[in-house]
């Protein structure tokens, strides 16, 4: 075996230089990039986890608020129903009482008008009696005609 010893030392030096060049210019930067990527992936995973949690919390919150809104809506409808029933009852009651009141008033009016009419009639009858009496006196008539006249007036009065 022919050994050229200079090759041994040349290779030693060459590999040393190659090692230095590679670590200085090629793999040094690449290692740092890989480290950065590791960090980057870690951060991304963390942020993904965070946003997932956030989304879950928000979903829960929204679910609750939806539930709340539904309940509120139900309550409002319920209330509206009650109110409307109450109002309808009130309206009916008011209408009834109004009607009763109007009827009563009408009855009272009728009564008072009747009373008025009667009293007016009374006063007229008395006036008429006076007039009849004066007419009788004016005419100076006999019994027969007097009787006739009284009947006549009485009939008039009675027909009124």
């Amino acid at each position, binding site marked *: 075996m022919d050994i*050229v010893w*200079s090759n041994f030392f040349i*290779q030693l030096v060459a590999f040393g230089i190659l090692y230095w*060049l*590679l670590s200085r*210019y090629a793999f040094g930067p*690449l290692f740092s990039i890989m480290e950065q990527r590791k960090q980057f992936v870690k951060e991304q995973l963390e942020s993904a986890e965070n946003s997932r949690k956030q989304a879950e919390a928000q979903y829960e919150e929204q679910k609750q608020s939806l539930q709340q809104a539904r309940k509120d809506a139900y309550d409002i409808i319920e209330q509206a129903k009650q109110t409307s029933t109450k109002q309808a009852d009130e309206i009916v009651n008011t209408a009834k009482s109004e009607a009763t009141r109007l009827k009563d008033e009408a009855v009272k009016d009728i009564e008072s008008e009747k009373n008025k009419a009667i009293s007016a009639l009374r006063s007229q009858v008395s006036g008429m009696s006076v007039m009849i009496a004066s007419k009788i006196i004016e005419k100076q008539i006999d019994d027969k005609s007097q009787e006739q006249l009284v009947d006549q007036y009485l009939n008039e009065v009675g027909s009124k």
Partner: protein
Amino acid sequence: MDHIFPEVHLGGIRFDLAAIFMIVLTSIIVFVMAKLAVRGASVTNPTKMQNFLEWVIEFVQNIIGTTMDLKKGRPYLMLGISMIMYLFVANLLGLPFGIITEAHHGATFLGMELHMEGEEAHIAWWKSPTADVAVAGALMAIVIVLTHIEGLRRNRKHYLKHYIEPYAAFFPLNVIKEIAKPLSLSLRLYGNIFAGEVMIGVIMGMGWFGIPALIVWQGFSIFVGAIQSFVFVMLTMVYMSQAIVHEEGH
């Protein structure tokens, strides 16, 4: 026909120009590839090349993870990545073609006289750098020296103690084991890659009939090159873990 490698003698030291050329070329290819891959590298939108390089990193991380605690192995990640990329490129580089020049005695390269035994030689300029035992040995030496240094530095007591385990009488055996490790590590790599290139040379000698065999063998060599670079890095990490990890129950 035998091919020799272009050799020059400078100040009494032999230099293998082909090996030097291929070492430099491999290093440049690896560095340019890595540099292009991280150009415009981004955190959120990695390019295809960036993805590939990150895959390499994860691959080496997995190798380290199978042999030791990844936290303890982190300092050797860069070593593993550089080693596997360099070895992979180096192992495959010799496969696709060869550059062979014919030279006569007294031929020069950049003013340096090429050394040759005979009057005339075929000089092979293109080969896998790891097909040279000295180059494979240098890569092995980096790894083995580092394991011993790291063992002494980070795990001194247990590292020293493991030489006399289970009994002090086992010391010679343990020393043999420590010597066998680098030998097997470098010779395995060198043997596989060198044999692959020798086989390619032999098949080329078959002429046109050799083309199907060449295709098959080149495919197999790609496989061998990839496996050898993987095995080398795997064993690096295994030796490292043996040196630095304090085993439970001892």
